[in-house]
């Protein structure tokens, strides 16, 4: 018995250590779970073109930035996916760890949809109404008070008398950051009274706002269970669950590939991947991955990423990003400048410009 045990152990050890050791020839991607469906499809295509298929670890935009900015070397990720731009705070983190060469690839747009079950009546909302339903403190008769609203028709009589209940993403989620910026801050009524935007992104805490995990499928299930419930998530989830959910129109605009691409839909946002330039040439395929992701085959009219919900960018930006991935010139994006809240597109007048390197 003892002998056979020893041989088994020896065999086990030899099996394990016969495999390759720590050097890496497989790209390691971390980051946003909104970018996950696109990043993984693209990873698979890269794998089919002869490289090793990259791995993608969906730990959220914030978590991804933290891991990505932890240092340079094969033990750190090569690419991070983000459903919002890098923050100045995160750029500082990168700088401190010596990650100074980062290339920003803005590759498509996504729309955050404010959806509920399609068995219920359709909703047409404004951002102010969404803010008024969800914020902890709102303005009533010129005074800031605890949110008193229980049903949607109390906010706007033309809305159905559904109870207010919204499922939201966790604080590590880029979708939540984007939603807070695009809706809660944009629809905020507090500023007019108090003079500051403090409290605009505070959700009410009386059980009407329910925080869920990163798992968007679970949110879809919960929305189907109770038709009066609302939730927000990326456009691709809506596209795959068209038989169960309907989006609310926001400011009169229905989310669609077109309205998102033109930013006519107010909750549209750009999606990013960030490349660690020092890893290019060390881990094979990083540049090719980025090139494939912005190719016409991927984000063109019938592209494989467009088909699953990514909305294309305007031609100017597409040409710019293709230039970036082909020449590996960051075109003015610099971590040190980003840490100081500077970004080359900040004054370019795009709808998302103000959010860059915030």
């Amino acid at each position, binding site marked *: *018995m*003892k002998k056979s045990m020893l041989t088994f*152990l020896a065999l*086990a*050890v030899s*099996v*394990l*250590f*016969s*495999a*390759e*050791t*720590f050097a*890496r020839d*497989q790209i*390691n991607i971390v980051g946003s*779970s909104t970018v*996950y*469906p696109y*990043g*993984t*499809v693209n*990873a*698979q295509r890269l*794998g089919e073109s002869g490289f*090793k*298929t990259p*791995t*993608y*670890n*969906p730990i959220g935009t914030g978590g991804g930035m933290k891991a990505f900015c932890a240092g340079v070397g*094969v*033990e750190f*990720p090569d690419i991070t996916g983000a459903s919002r731009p890098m923050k100045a705070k995160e750029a500082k983190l990168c700088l401190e760890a010596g990650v100074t060469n980062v290339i920003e690839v803005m590759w498509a747009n996504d729309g955050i949809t404010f959806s509920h079950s*399609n068995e219920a009546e359709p909703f047409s909302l404004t951002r102010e109404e969404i803010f008024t339903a969800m914020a902890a403190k709102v303005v009533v008769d010129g005074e800031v008070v605890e949110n008193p609203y229980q049903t949607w028709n109390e906010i706007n009589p033309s809305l159905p008398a559904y109870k207010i209940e919204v499922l939201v993403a966790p604080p590590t989620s880029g979708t939540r950051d984007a939603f807070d910026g695009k809706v809660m801050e944009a629809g905020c009524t507090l500023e007019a009274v108090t003079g500051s935007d403090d409290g605009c992104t505070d959700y009410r805490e009386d059980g009407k706002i329910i925080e869920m995990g*990163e*798992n*968007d*499928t*679970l949110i879809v299930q919960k929305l189907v269970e109770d038709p009066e419930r609302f939730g927000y998530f990326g456009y*691709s*989830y809506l*596209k*795959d*669950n*068209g*038989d169960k959910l309907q989006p609310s129109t926001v400011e009169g605009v229905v989310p669609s590939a077109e309205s998102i691409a033109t930013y006519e839909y107010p909750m549209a946002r750009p999606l990013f991947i960030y490349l660690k330039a020092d890893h290019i040439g060390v881990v094979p395929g990083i540049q090719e991955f980025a090139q494939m992701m912005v190719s016409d085959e991927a984000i063109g009219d*019938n592209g494989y990423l467009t088909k*699953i919900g990514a909305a294309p960018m305007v031609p100017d930006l597409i040409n710019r990003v293709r230039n970036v991935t082909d020449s590996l010139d960051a075109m003015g994006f610099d971590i040190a400048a980003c840490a100081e809240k500077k970004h080359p597109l900040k004054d370019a007048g795009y709808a998302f410009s103000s959010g860059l390197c915030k």
Partner: protein
Amino acid sequence: MSSLEKRLAAEKRFKFYGMFAMTLSLFFVLILMYKIFSTGSGAFVRTTINADVYFDPNFIEVSSNSSKKEIMKASYVDLADQVINQNHPGLDEENFIKVREMYTRKFDYQLRDYIANNPNVIGKTVNLDISASSDLDQIVKGNYPRNVPEAQRKINDYQLSILDSLDSKGKMSKTFNFWFFTNGDSRDPETAGILGALMGSFYALLICFSFAFPIGLLASVYLEEFVKPGKITDIIEVNINNLAAVPSIVYGLLGLGMLIGVFGMPYQVPLVGGLVLGFMTLPTIIIASRASLRGVPPSIREGALAVGATKMQTVFHHVIPLSLPGTLTGTIIGMAQALGETAPLLLVGMVAFVMEIPGGAFDPATGLPSQIYLWSESAERGFLEKTSAGIMLLLSFLIIMNTVAVLVRRKLEVKW
């Protein structure tokens, strides 16, 4: 009522409560099983479309004489398009794309594998069952309704009409989906398989066993047989029992901080996952092993010592072999627990999209439970049945391991 009647009535009531409790728990288990099996069984079959495939040499870069390596390397995208044109004559460009979408995206791989296995087929026509795309598969299986407005469907009206005409010609059929067992993860639900996650879990458990079993066994032998019981052993005992109850996520944090942070081990590999699971299983093994060492009667030890064996000989020749059934049972149950753990894997990065099947403990991998979690997160309808099928597989492994544990104990246990 007499006292006897009262007592008998109490007994009757108690029996009823017991029955009720048991039926209730069985009822819940049945609901769970029904839900898992009814959604998961679909993953084991896949929809196929029957087509005549002419292996036209004009569209194939290789010949019958090419080596297997050349055949595997060549591209068969044009051949796949040609096959669709032959089976659906007269399509314009737009409709061609629509029809192409009804077949699996990996159509050309299926053709490649067929040629690799039958090189002589080039130039001949063969009748093949070609896998349908997952979106079509879900419509055929009824998991996605066809009566919703066209805009809410991924398969449009034109594709539905093609599907119906194929169906009326008897070209649609279903086959056993062996890909589920032979493929790694994929973003095309029809080709996604569980083998990658299975190998990841296997390597992690191998590491876990190689680490935790010898250390656990030696620690318990030392504590039971060599150390005099005293304050220190009491403190150790309390701590071991305590560790056995520590939530698994704490071990995950330990792995992240120590193994990855301090020792610089790589992220998302079974080596780290296995070691973390090993930390977690160690107290369970020590407790089980100590209990079974204690169960060996002192007369065995005294007998061995009486004929002149040293303490070590006594322990290794007599006590350990006799206590092994109990130790092994504890180990297997501990490993079964480790197999189902998700939280520690999450923290050491073994939750990722990994397509390649890991070839060792240093390759990036996911585990079974984390693969289930990832599929459950995916938006595509086709992953819903994969999720349930993954759970079924995990459950069957747990049942097998626990049955082995019971059998080992029954078979090898010595009654004194």
